[in-house]
């Protein structure tokens, strides 16, 4: 029972983190034609999905550094992390959890 409760708590946390990240993306990258709720968790952030580009990618790296103290040195690594909101939230949660 206790384990199950913990899992629900961490899922809530992850959900809250996703909301936070969506709001961050929309406001900081000045996406004015999409609201945070419209971003699907598993949709690609770049290309066909939300349509972010290379400049957004480096802007995201800076935003993660400012907000969460996470440093992504290698854009190849970033490519995996920024695939969708799911992968991004998981990476941020893992990276901040370790600290």
């Amino acid at each position, binding site marked *: 029972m206790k384990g199950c409760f913990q899992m629900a708590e961490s899922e809530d946390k992850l959900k809250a983190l996703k909301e936070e990240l969506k709001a961050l993306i929309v406001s900081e*990258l000045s996406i004015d*034609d999409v609201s945070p709720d419209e971003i699907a968790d598993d949709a690609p952030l770049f290309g066909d999905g939300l*349509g972010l*580009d*290379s*400049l957004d990618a480096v802007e995201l790296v*800076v935003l993660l*550094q*400012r907000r969460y103290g996470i440093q992504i040195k290698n854009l190849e690594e970033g490519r995996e992390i920024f695939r969708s909101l799911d992968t991004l939230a998981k990476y941020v949660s893992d990276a901040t959890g370790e600290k």
Partner: protein
Amino acid sequence: MNAGGSRDLAGGRNFSDVVVTGVGVVCAAGGNVREVHSATLSGSRDPKPRPTLFDADFGKPVFECAARFSSGDPGGRSLKLLEGALEEAFDRAGLSADRCGSKIGVCVGTTVACMLNDLDFYAAVKRGERPGVDPLRRYVEGDLSSILGRRLGARGPVATIANACSSGTEALAAGFHWLRAGLCDIVVAAGADELNLVPYCGFNSLQVMGDSFCLPFDRRRSGLNLGEGAGVVVLETAEHAVSRGARPLAVLRGVGGGSDAYHITGPHPDGLGLESAIRMATSTAGAALEDIEYVNAHGTATRDNDLVEGRLFHRLFGDGAVFASTKYYTGHTLGAAGAIEAALCVEGIVDGRLPGIPGVKRDPDIPVAPLAESAEYGGGLVLSTSMAFGGSCSALLFGSPEDMAVASRSPRRVAPLVPVSTGTGAIGAFGLGVKRLAEAVADAGAGASAETADFSIPFEALNLPSLKRIRRRSGKLGVAMLAAANEAVESAGIAAPLGSGTAVVVATAFGAHSATFAFLDGLLEYGHTAPSPTHFSTSVHNSMAFLITTALGITGPSVTVTGFDGLFKRARTVAGSLLSGGTRPFGGRGRDERCFFGDGGDLARFPRRWPYRLGGGRRGVYSRTIRRWGRTGRSRRNRRWRFRGYGPHHVS
């Protein structure tokens, strides 16, 4: 190759060749052009593991010049570097600054020297202090071309080009057009830039700066290294050089410009703008792509740059493409790069050897390998390319002095084509539209006060829906400028996309400094490693030209002119000579050739707490289109008024 006397002079018109009679370079690879050239042949280079000129929170390699160039005077270190290169170039050309009877024009490309980026000063202002005004004075008085123009007693055109990383190349291109248009006898064409904390942090935040020494076109690349320096190229009409007994070092056979109209930082994947620029340079030269034997590439050592250039060279020149990048030896010197590399191309032609990239390991993603060992110069054409933020691309084409053709008549006796204005647009405190401007003028300033007016306009009003994603990165000034451009184009009765037959010339005194200040805010708030890369890339002076080219689908040349003295006239000279100087400079036979130009000031964007007033600038944005006259019936019909001429002494 074409033999000297028999060559059809620039497509049938009676133009003299533009020749190079002097070159000078100062950069990390040496204090004069021979030193730098021999360093590029011997394969030796001397980057520093981190900057010593300023303190940064992180260390990445840079190509620094000696500390002795530093200066607190207007123009700063960039001017000192420029003076060094100028002395050498004048010496080589057999000219002297104080007694020169020729009509001289001055065109300088730069990026750092035209930005207000004194971080300490800015921080003090933000804290509400009132620091000394010296940094502001240095900035306003530091326009490099004005300083040089005064010193040389220039009676020809004077302009500073702020086209980001293609500024130096565009300075030579402008000089070429001035000489072709008969505006002067000699042009001192130059580029100068100093290492500075602001672009150092900016390029780092863009994640394009290498942790190790730069390796252009090499699969082991880790990114670019910034450098600093200056290059000066003395351009003359062939007959002027011959008449004063100067020995031409090389011929500047053609110049070209093109815009990607694609992305503020990323090059078009197919190298659209660069291809236009190369084709325009080749056609101006009356040559073919096969005549090009060597390419001095932009070659910054970023993956995007290398792949786009390498693939384009393969497409244009086939498996036999010969290209290399001297940024391996100099680092990326930003606004100076194009002029330094032009000087090195000329020195290579003189010396008969062109440099390679030593020990380069071929990148499998590029279908042709760059030149590794230096190569002998075989008498053909040497191409030099530049690509910049905002998608501004430029190309220069140099040839052997043996090919020099001298016109039988002076070009000034050839009646120039007279550009006419066919459309106008305006935006300012009075609102959007020339009509509103006329009303405000008739009203003698009644109505909105320039002090408080907000001339931001709703983007939707422009009815350019394709811009959804570009607009989000544009400041107020860019959108205002685009609104005026859009009005001008509409009133000229032409419609987007305007394509490669149209050029954009923008004049701006302060540039998009709302983006510059936002970037500086980021540096102060988050430290050197986390300012916004978006703010950095949109802070370039040519970001407005980017917005105009992209929104209106313009893929012809794009030139941004900056400075303070007579700026609008300077830009008009650049625009006018673009249209009249070369033969069919862009577009094909029978197509409309137009040039759009305008200027914009962003004074109202200074922070409210800014304790100083900067001299009276124009707060509006003003723009016109010019269509080359006499080519189609339509341009006559659309004619509203015409210039009597262009240039600093005979503008209408």
